[in-house]
């Protein structure tokens, strides 16, 4: 399932609620990989007070679904949950949650990472940071995951 939400959310409550609904997973999922992306209070050497996440309603969901479907084609996985926040966010708020349930750990790790990397390069979301002096700036480019 994919979800775009504009309110603060508890990633752990979301995982638990979703997992409970999916009766088919019971006894079958040996591995769960969860990635949580959280807003930091700094970026490129500057303090960041807050951020606004813009998206393209319609295209965002379409591209996100395509990423999940591609992961399901490439790895033998049981279920996927992706939640992405939009709107105004603050440090320590969760920006993105990716959960992959799988029989074995290899697929869970690989699919989770693939979804995150592809989401960051393909799915239309844009971050605008609000700095300590209330100036704002668009984030120009996502990192490659190692910086």
């Amino acid at each position, binding site marked *: 399932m994919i979800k775009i939400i504009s309110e603060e959310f508890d990633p752990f409550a979301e995982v638990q609620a979703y997992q409970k609904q999916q009766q088919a997973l019971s006894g079958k999922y040996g591995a769960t990989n969860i990635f949580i*992306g959280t807003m930091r209070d700094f970026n490129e050497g500057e303090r960041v007070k807050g951020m606004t*996440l*813009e*998206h*393209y309603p*319609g*295209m965002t969901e*379409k*591209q996100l679904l395509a990423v999940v479907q591609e992961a399901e084609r490439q790895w033998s996985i049981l279920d996927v949950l992706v939640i*992405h926040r939009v709107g105004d966010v603050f440090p320590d708020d969760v*920006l*993105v949650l990716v959960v992959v349930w799988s029989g074995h750990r290899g697929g869970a790790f690989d699919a989770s990472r693939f979804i*995150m990397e592809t*989401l*960051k*390069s*393909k*799915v*239309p*979301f*844009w*971050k*605008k940071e609000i700095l300590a002096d209330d100036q704002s700036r*668009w*984030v*120009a*480019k*996502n990192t490659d995951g190692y910086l």
Partner: protein
Amino acid sequence: MTVSIKVRYFASLKELLGRSEDMLEFEQVLSVADVWRQATEAKVMPDNTLAALNMEYVDLACIVADGDEVAFFPPVTGG
């Protein structure tokens, strides 16, 4: 026949142009690049601008059709 399309702008492009969308009507065959020129009065397109046609990424050379939605936006920075 008149072709009418919607053009949408996001993030820094929306701020650059000072608006989030345009409705365009025309008679010729237009590519996505032509749509940009026509809608923006031939503003220089910022480097790395991405284009989507009906919510799928496309090349600027793609031809648009009646009822299409064309979108222009900077590199995405979600996650």
